[in-house]
């Protein structure tokens, strides 16, 4: 894929190169070692072309390959020279870029003839070779320092038990020089190791067998492998790919394009950087700088890269890697791939759970508190209803005599009417008119008696209080019926004054009547004990509408009134001015009134001598349930 891409680019380059006659377009050519398609050359070309065209898209970039001088068979160099002379006759280049020492050698041999006066940017040449070249006119470039020694020391650091180093190398004269350089560096940097020499272009099949049976604690190093013993060009990554599955020892190579095929890694040289550096220098010359004035540069072209699969395979712990190392081919765990997502999601989950927990806890607490409050409230209501009921029963008990009196009247009417009717019937002729009238009176009396019993039953009935909007006048009138006899027996005038406004209040009818009954009977008690003369014995019940949208009753008696001491204590339970009586009436009345949202307050009469009790409820302005 990579090679295919490189060929495509190359084709494009050659095409644009063919149009190089256009004098206005700058034109450069990159000369690389034969054969085309080596990954190393492709990397350099990619880096070079990319940087150049990014800076100036009009530059025409050509590329060509020269065979390495030392590889040439007799007559080859001359034939190549002739071919280049013919090929580039009439074409013009602004800069000539040469990658590698052998191509540089070849180009220098042809320069005067083929590319006279064209500035040269050389690249990928080690400082020693550059120095050996001596001064060359119109030439600059970027140098490359081999990282073999540095990398071997690193390899030994990664695998401290290493005792053997197997050097794999090619067979060509160029290979031979690389091999001897490598041996030299091995000796210098990791001289203690035992060298296993696998150079000389051993064919891959054979080499595969050899690397499978290496002694323990061996590392395999491929520095350069250009041609095998049969003269076939070899690409390093093909060698690595072939050896890696069979090898019983880790394989090291230090070119970036070998990464992924089976090498462990190290400080890898990035040839695209070499291409970029050459492009930078080229651009400077194209802008008019003299190449002679630009000293050769020596850029950093390496970075630490490792193949995670190989580290695993050879049990190399990650903590032995130099700081800043890049680990490639590591399968991303979910954690590594989505670490922040996972952290955020988990944090959000925890936060949410916590919030839910807190809310639930609070809700439960609130519910418990609420439940307790409700229970207490229910209990209080139940108690109040219970006490109110007892109070009503007690009241009726005390009213017993007057209720009997109240009932005896219609009963007397019924009996006398019935007996009179009998007499009228037995007359000759029977007086049917009187009989009919008697029967009608009996019916009315019976209804009256039934009504009294109904009221009594309501008073003693137990039940939950049920507030309804009700006409205050009607309700007050009704309760008077139960009290009239009592007043009469006591010799007290019971007067009722109804407001013409016909107010409506929201109350439980029975409990309201109970309050009025308590207040009236208190008033009557006060009068009875005061010994007032007949003409000054009265209780006045008034229905009232106040200015502040409150309505209720005021009960005024003609008794002795309330002393400040009594006023202060009057609503206390069991507080009583009476000789007999529990002293619960007013206390209960107040709790009833307040449970209806009303208020009850005592005072002394403005016009008379006695006390007056005011009961007020919020006035209702809505539809009314009568009765």
């Amino acid at each position, binding site marked *: 894929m990579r090679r295919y891409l490189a060929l495509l680019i190359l084709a494009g380059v050659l095409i644009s190169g063919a149009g190089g006659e256009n004098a206005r377009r700058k034109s450069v050519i990159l000369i690389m070692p034969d054969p085309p398609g080596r990954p190393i050359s492709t990397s350099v070309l990619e880096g070079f072309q990319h940087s150049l065209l990014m800076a100036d898209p009009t530059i025409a970039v050509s590329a060509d390959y020269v065979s390495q001088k030392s590889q040439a068979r007799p007559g080859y160099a001359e034939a190549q020279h002739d071919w280049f002379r013919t090929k580039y006759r009439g074409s013009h280049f602004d800069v000539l870029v040469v990658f590698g020492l052998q191509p540089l050698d070849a180009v220098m041999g042809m320069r005067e003839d083929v590319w006279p006066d064209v500035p040269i940017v050389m690249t990928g040449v080690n400082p020693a070779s550059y120095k050996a070249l001596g001064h060359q006119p119109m030439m600059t470039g970027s140098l490359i320092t081999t990282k073999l020694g540095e990398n071997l020391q690193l390899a030994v650091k990664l695998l401290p038990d290493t005792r053997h180093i197997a050097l794999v190398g090619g067979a060509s004269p160029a290979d031979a020089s690389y091999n001897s350089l490598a041996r030299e560096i091995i000796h210098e940097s990791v001289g203690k190791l035992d060298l296993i020499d696998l150079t000389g272009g051993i064919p891959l099949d054979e080499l595969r067998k050899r690397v499978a049976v290496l002694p323990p604690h061996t590392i395999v190093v491929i520095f350069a492998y250009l041609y095998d013993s049969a003269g076939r060009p070899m690409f390093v990554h093909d060698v690595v790919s072939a050896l890696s599955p069979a090898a019983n020892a880790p394989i090291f190579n230090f070119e970036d394009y070998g990464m992924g095929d089976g090498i462990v890694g190290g400080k890898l040289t990035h040839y695209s950087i070499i291409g970029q550096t050459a492009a930078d220098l080229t651009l400077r010359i194209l802008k008019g700088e003299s190449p002679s004035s630009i000293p050769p540069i020596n850029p950093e072209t390496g970075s630490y890269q490792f193949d995670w699969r190989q580290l695993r395979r050879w049990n190399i712990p990650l903590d032995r890697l130099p700081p800043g190392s890049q680990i490639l081919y590591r399968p991303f765990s979910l954690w590594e791939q989505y670490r922040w997502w996972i952290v955020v999601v988990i944090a959000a989950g925890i936060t949410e759970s916590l919030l839910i927990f807190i809310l639930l806890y609070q809700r439960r607490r609130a519910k418990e508190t609420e439940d307790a409050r409700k229970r207490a409230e229910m209990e209080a209501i139940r108690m109040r209803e219970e006490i109110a009921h007892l109070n009503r029963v007690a009241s009726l008990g005390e009213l017993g*005599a007057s209720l009997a009196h109240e009932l*005896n009247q219609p009963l007397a009417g019924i009996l006398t*009417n019935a007996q009179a009717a009998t*007499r009228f019937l037995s007359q000759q002729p029977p007086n049917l008119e009187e009989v009919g009238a008697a029967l009608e009176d009996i019916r009315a009396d019976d209804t009256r008696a039934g009504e009294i019993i109904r009221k009594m039953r309501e008073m003693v009935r137990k039940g939950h209080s049920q507030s309804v909007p009700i006409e205050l006048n009607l309700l007050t009138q009704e309760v008077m019926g139960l009290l009239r006899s009592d007043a009469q027996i006591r010799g007290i005038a019971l007067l009722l004054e109804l407001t013409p406004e016909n107010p409506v209040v929201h109350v439980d009818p029975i409990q309201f009547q109970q309050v009025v009954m308590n207040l009236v009977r208190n008033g009557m008690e006060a009068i009875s004990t005061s010994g007032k003369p007949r003409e000054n014995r009265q209780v006045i019940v008034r229905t009232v509408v106040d200015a502040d949208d409150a309505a209720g009753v005021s009960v005024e008696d003609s008794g002795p009134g309330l002393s400040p001491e009594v006023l202060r204590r009057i609503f206390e339970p069991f507080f009583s001015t009476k000789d007999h009586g529990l002293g619960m009436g007013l206390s209960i009345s107040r709790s009833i009134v307040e449970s209806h949202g009303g208020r009850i307050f005592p005072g002394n009469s403005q016009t008379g001598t006695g006390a007056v009790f005011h009961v007020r409820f919020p006035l209702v302005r809505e539809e009314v349930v009568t009765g």
Partner: protein
Amino acid sequence: MVDDDPSVRKGLSRLLRSEGFGVVTFSSGEEFLREPGLCGIRCFVIDIQLGGMSGLEVARTLKEREIRTPCIFITAHDEAMTRDALLAAGSPTCLRKPFDADEFLRNLRLALAGPG
């Protein structure tokens, strides 16, 4: 007859009419005492618990006016008056409502036939 209760007034009047008596009714003692024609009346039936002045007070007033017409007291109250109180008011007879017609008429005739 003086009674503040309409049921009793109606029933008792009808009973008396059925026996051929003429009846005049009053609903309060005060009203009764204001009546100028009391002299022609043979018997007073007076309820003890009246709205204003009580039946006993009415009787005492009659006594003060030296009207010696016989009285029959009636009451709806359960507690009977003491005989002394009744006698002091001018009559030993007090019927508790509801009373039987025959008993009432017997007492009425006794009163009519009495010393007055």
